[in-house]
């Protein structure tokens, strides 16, 4: 394999620059790349070659983490296409969506006091997963259109996915707390 670092993560995995990815195929490519860059293979190599291999291995790991999750993959792809994300200033999300987020947060917070907390929890998580899948499917469609307006809409949906992702994290934290007490 070439010792230079790849220009982007898709290229590194020898994949087309596209949102739709076969997760199993990606995992298999990751396993192969990991083997090729493993430090043991460079035990007797020169300093420079070994250093490059370490860099490459780090890039492979980072790339896999970004590509395997739909949210980070969509964001990364948009950034490759010139769409900028500004964590400090991207606050404009439609009020209706935020209202729903607030309700979901309230519903999540009310679960521990419910009569059947685990049932309520499962119902809410199913709802979150369903919303996330719908957002993901729409992003996939938009990213195939390759127009500026589609990219702008995809960015707004990625921002929504970030809220849903946070909710899912909060839900997982609650699940652990529930399982501890029941």
């Amino acid at each position: 394999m070439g010792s230079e670092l790849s220009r982007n993560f898709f290229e590194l995995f020898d994949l087309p620059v596209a949102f739709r990815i076969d997760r199993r195929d990606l995992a298999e490519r990751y396993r192969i790349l990991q083997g090729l860059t493993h430090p043991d293979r460079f035990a007797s190599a020169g300093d420079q070659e070994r250093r490059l291999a370490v860099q490459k291995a780090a890039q492979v790991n980072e790339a896999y983490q970004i590509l395997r999750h739909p949210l980070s993959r969509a964001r990364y792809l948009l950034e490759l296409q010139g769409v900028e994300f500004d964590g400090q200033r991207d606050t404009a999300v439609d009020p209706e969506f935020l209202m729903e987020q607030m309700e979901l947060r309230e519903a999540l917070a009310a679960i521990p006091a419910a009569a059947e907390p685990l049932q309520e929890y499962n119902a809410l998580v199913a709802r979150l997963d369903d919303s996330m899948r719908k957002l993901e499917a729409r992003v996939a469609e938009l990213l195939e259109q390759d127009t500026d307006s589609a990219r702008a809409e995809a960015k707004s949906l990625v921002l929504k996915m970030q809220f849903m992702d946070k909710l899912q994290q909060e839900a997982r934290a609650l699940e652990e707390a529930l399982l501890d007490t029941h």
Partner: protein
Amino acid sequence: MAYSDKVIDHYENPRNVGTMDKDDAGVGTGMVGAPACGDVMRLQIKVGENGVIEDAKFKTYGCGSAIASSSLLTEWVKGKTLDEALEIKNTQIAEELELPPVKIHCSVLAEDAIKAAIEDYQKKQGNKDEAKSA
């Protein structure tokens, strides 16, 4: 990163947590969110006939700094006119709470929330005036 005493105070004893009727013509509701950290903030104001903010409530799901920023803001806007409330800058909130640079966006969120609440209130009033003159 350590929180300042003021942030901890607002986080442990948040002022004015609650909900107002968002369909009340005298209530303005501001909903904002920070996608980077998934925080959501709702800030509501009750405006009197004289245009002064009589009461303010908030509900924030987020980190300590976001909760403290919105809690402090509800204290500050009570008794102010809408124009006075619009003059509050996120830098004043950040300074009062001694927020570190990585948490400045929490104060931005609070400033955006009060602006959105005032805008919502004014929109409702505008609709009412239109209905009257129609």
